[in-house]
């Protein structure tokens, strides 16, 4: 295992210390509770937006804490959901009296722990609402699975909903927009290589020099199928077409196109993926209204990419464009 770390046990804590040292003007890190909170939290009268999940997906979620996006993030151990105590501490820290909104990715662990935290917060009189993102079309959304996983849409949703919350919207309004964003977004990912969980020390799965996994999750979970390595053009077809079909995207519609790197894939490759995506969308007469290209929801050092398409309306665009000031996404301020 080749990583820039000191020891597998201290990865999350030390990365948090690094964030605290580099972004003191944007965020506060509470090491005791292992949470990241925006520097000026709680903001009185504002809905507090909280997200979290296992670590190893950086910059998600900690990198999205700050004005116009998240009020707090609770990072768990690598690929392991945070515990209710952490989440509750985050909810308390950002409760400005207008309630707290939880953004949860649909994994059994995340759902259960946020659920327990919500019960505890409500018992303390904090109003709580939540969204469970489930945009991964690689997973059948049926009775026979835990439901689709939450992946790339989470990033877009955090930005858009964070923008709305910053504008002073109510918990109800925030929840309504979050629901809509989640419904209108779909994703799919693939891996060229496995990642290595530090505590395990060896790759989660082995891939041959000429193989790739299609439909992987963001925790090093293997995908739905293993196929021969293919040109970027073909890979993007494999990812984009199921998304477009599942969303029922029609000619003339507008999307936010998000090309995401899994952590070990450099930007130059992501722009080749973006080229193929643009070609496919153009062929179907779907307009790219906004775009995001980069490694924003990662799986440690996994090489690979994911694509997310979000069917956007004017309200979503307004809050996507709204100013944001976080370690990882920043504009307008």
């Amino acid at each position, binding site marked *: 295992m080749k990583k820039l770390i000191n020891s597998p046990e201290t990865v999350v804590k030390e990365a948090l210390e690094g964030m605290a040292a580099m972004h003191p003007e944007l965020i506060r890190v509470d090491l005791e509770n292992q949470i990241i909170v925006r520097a000026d939290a709680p903001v009185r009268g504002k809905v507090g937006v909280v997200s979290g999940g*296992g670590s190893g997906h950086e910059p998600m979620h900690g990198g999205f804490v700050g004005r116009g996006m998240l009020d707090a993030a609770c990072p*768990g*151990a*690598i*690929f*392991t*959901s*945070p*515990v*209710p*105590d952490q989440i509750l501490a985050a909810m308390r820290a950002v409760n400005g009296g207008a309630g707290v909104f939880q953004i949860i990715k649909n*994994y*059994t*662990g995340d759902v*259960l*722990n946020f*659920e*327990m935290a919500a019960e505890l917060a409500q018992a303390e009189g904090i109003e709580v609402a939540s969204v469970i993102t489930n945009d991964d079309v*690689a*997973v*059948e959304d049926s*009775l*026979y*699975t*835990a439901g689709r*996983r939450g992946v790339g849409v989470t990033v877009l949703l955090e930005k858009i909903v964070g923008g709305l919350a910053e504008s002073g919207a109510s918990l109800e309004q925030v929840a309504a927009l979050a629901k809509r964003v989640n419904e209108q977004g779909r994703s799919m990912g693939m891996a060229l290589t496995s990642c290595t*969980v530090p*505590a*395990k020390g060896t790759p*989660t*799965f082995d891939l041959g020099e000429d193989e790739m996994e299609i439909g992987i*999750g963001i*925790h*090093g*979970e*293997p995908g*739905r*199928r293993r196929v021969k390595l293919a040109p970027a053009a073909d890979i993007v077809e494999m990812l984009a077409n199921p998304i477009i079909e599942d969303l029922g995207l029609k000619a003339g519609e507008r999307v936010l196109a998000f090309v995401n790197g899994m952590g070990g894939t450099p930007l130059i490759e992501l722009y080749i993926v973006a080229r193929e995506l643009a070609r496919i969308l153009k062929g179907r007469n779907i307009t790219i209204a906004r775009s995001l290209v980069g490694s924003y929801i990662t799986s440690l050092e996994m090489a690979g990419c994911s694509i997310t398409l979000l069917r956007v309306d004017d309200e979503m665009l307004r809050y996507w464009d709204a100013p944001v000031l976080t370690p990882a996404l920043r504009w307008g301020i």
Partner: protein
Amino acid sequence: MPITTEDVLRWITQAAQVFHEQRDYLTQLDAPIGDADHGVNMDRGFRAVLDKLPSLSGMDIGSILKTVGTTLVSTVGGASGPLYGTAFLRAGMVTAGKHELDEADVIEMLQAALDGIKARGKAHTGEKTMVDALEPALAAARKAQEQHESLAVLLRRAAEAAEEGMKATIPMLATKGRASYLGERSIGHQDPGATSSWLLLKTLAEVAD
């Protein structure tokens, strides 16, 4: 011989030891159908439980199990944290105030734990989860009780049934938890959570022996 407070403390202590030793094994099981952390999660949780041990002396069995439950909830995370946490919390509720557990108490405790997991996880038998180890274990325990077996035998039977249930998860198609994302590819792998459940029951049986 009933199970005493000391037995429960020994159980917890030895379980922590077992999860530490089996950390890599459980994590390896979680790699092909999960996210390669189950052993790490259980080890982290039970090490935290060990740290609480000094504060548990003098407590009744219910309080000990409740403390184990809250500790697991606070330190494990993932799916198994809330699930095992709830199991121990519920087990602690039905054993509140007790310093000894007889056959009926133990069965009530196992039933409460299983119900807690099923309620939290909305899980049923046959979905390739810890339920597939615990449900047959409970059935075997009930059968042993009907046959008026000793508590030691009852727990051995339960552990054996858990082991069989665990092995029976190998050919199963997962429909709960992270393994369900794999669809057909989940077949042929043993569930890590069923394995940790078996380890817990096996350790309890050894302590009661």
